[in-house]
């Protein structure tokens, strides 16, 4: 694990030197920033704080084929990604990298998911520390930080004219070698440390999560949810743009005789998500769906996997068109008076 650097004007050169990898980096299309495969290094932007769509889509795409088949035939052709392929995500924010470490729990408990896990295995994560957190960032409350190393193979810092790169794993070292980075010294690592500390001080919002996972179940019937669910659109913004939300639907699709079984993002905010064939819906209104979203992240997931399914990236707050503010909900949940979990 070492300290490296490269001049800022060499960014395109560095990206171009990674020919052994399939490289993904934040790329703008209008106001929308997404992690796309780098075709033109000049199109890459490191300016935006958080990408609009989180890079979870690189491990868990919006839509992906599970297997293909021909109608009338019983042969199945699985589309499992190659575990030995080499992919590299360049410029991922620490919160989004930490999100992978949380979602790993889900895709690897009991049955393992080869689609997600093979991609995780074959991907090198080169992080980019945040110098200027967004208005609704609260990663320090979730065990992260603007320069958190969790889940990363290397972490870059913007030091003005230079990027300082600290490698954290063998995969990170392999990247530094492939990119032919120069060695960095004490000056750079000190500057990076200072920047990390300053960035931490710039984070405006926070939540003390102590006690929340244990308390939420006691608020199952509490009317406080309605303050938020009453204005909820029941759309997929907060969950689709959440780096830890991982729910999906599975559908068979056929085009003449060529067919596939595919999975695609789904969300507990849609009414049809839980509706039974009988028409009965255990979560009939937005109150139950809002409660499930928050409870799943802050109570059910930690109960099962011992970690809250939230990294404090602020996307659900930034993008909600009706200002349903996760931190506001959590604060109000702390004030609300709970009762013992209801028995039937």
């Amino acid at each position, binding site marked *: 694990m070492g300290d490296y650097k490269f001049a800022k004007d060499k960014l395109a050169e560095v990206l171009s030197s990674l020919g052994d990898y399939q490289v993904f980096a934040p790329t703008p299309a209008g106001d929308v920033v997404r992690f796309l495969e780098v075709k033109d290094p000049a199109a890459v932007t490191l300016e935006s704080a958080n990408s609009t769509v989180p890079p979870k889509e690189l491990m868990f795409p919006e839509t992906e084929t599970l297997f293909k088949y021909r109608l009338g035939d019983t042969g199945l052709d699985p589309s499992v990604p190659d575990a030995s392929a080499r992919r590299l995500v360049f410029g991922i924010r620490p919160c989004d990298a930490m999100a992978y470490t949380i979602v790993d729990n889900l895709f690897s408990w009991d049955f393992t*998911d080869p*689609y997600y896990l093979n991609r995780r295995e074959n991907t090198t994560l080169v992080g980019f520390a945040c110098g200027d957190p967004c208005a609704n960032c609260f990663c320090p409350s979730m065990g992260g930080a603007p320069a958190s190393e969790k889940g990363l193979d290397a972490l870059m810092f913007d030091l003005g004219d230079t990027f300082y790169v600290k490698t954290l794993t063998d995969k990170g070292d392999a990247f530094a070698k492939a990119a032919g980075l120069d060695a960095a010294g004490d000056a750079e690592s000190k500057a990076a440390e200072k920047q990390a500390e300053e960035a931490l001080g710039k984070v405006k919002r926070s939540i003390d999560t102590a006690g929340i996972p244990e308390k939420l179940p006691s608020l199952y019937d509490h009317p406080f949810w309605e303050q938020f669910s009453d204005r909820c659109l029941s759309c997929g913004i907060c969950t689709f743009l959440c780096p830890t939300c991982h*729910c999906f639907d599975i559908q068979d699709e056929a085009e003449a005789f060529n067919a596939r079984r595919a999975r695609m993002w789904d969300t507990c905010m849609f009414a049809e998500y*839980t*509706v039974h064939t009988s028409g009965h819906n255990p*979560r009939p209104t937005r109150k139950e769906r809002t409660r499930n979203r928050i409870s799943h992240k802050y109570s059910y997931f930690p109960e099962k996997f011992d970690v809250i399914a939230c990294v404090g990236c602020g996307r659900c707050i930034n993008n909600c068109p009706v200002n349903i503010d996760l931190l506001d909900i959590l604060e109000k949940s702390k004030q609300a008076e709970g009762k013992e979990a209801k028995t*039937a």
Partner: protein
Amino acid sequence: MMDESNPYLPYIVKVEDAWYETPVGDRAVKTFKVTFEDEKVWDTWSHRPGNCAMVGRLGIGESMFCISSSPTEEGYLRFSIMQAGKVTSAIHEVDAGDTLTVRGPLGNSFPMEEWEGKNIVSIGGGIGQAPLRPVINYVRANKDKYGDLKVLYGARTSDLHCFKTEFDEYSGEGTACHLAIDVEEEGWPHFVGFVPDLLMEVAPSPENTIAVTCGPPILIKFVTQNLEKLGFTPDQIYTTLEERMKCGIGKCGRCNVGSMYVCKDGPVFSYETLKKIPEAFA
């Protein structure tokens, strides 16, 4: 067991036989007796009463169903499926000689070993008898290990009872079989009324007994209440839950009740566990 490396890949199964349990029409129940196209699958396959599987048709999709045959019925699997939505309608079109897909076994199962030495009361309603059938048949096949077996089963009309041909077998073996229908029919010699009332009529003793119930949510609710009235404690009562499912392997998210995934941590739950999860009764 399923392909360990890819739990999304189903097995192809051949339908050996298929028949209607209830009159043909909307919401009919049809039973499919299937075997694996690749016989080698049997070498690694093992399931337990209560286990489920994703049954599907390529090109349409798959849905979760309980395996309605007991592991003691060897050489085939049975699924009893009510026609209701897109997938079940497509499965109902299938007959002997056709193929389906099966992905499983999935979910947990009834703790049959723990129950050894105890009396078993099975209380079912309608299609809810499907997950109880493997319990009943498992106990019948292992008579020496269990105490008394009582079967209580009701449906709206006598037509709508599933597994009708088996009732005489139960009685023949000395298993008490209490049947019920909701409304009076001419010539019906058994109980008329709802299953929770039938339960009070039969009034099984809670002494060294396990009660297993399945049926519509309203039936489960009142049967549970009545079992408690009869002196059953929550740890003596078991049921199976049903939620919308897609993956069956605890990933896709939608079947959660509280922190439990019904597809993985269920479908079998003791009432003691369910009492702590308010969403289980939603």
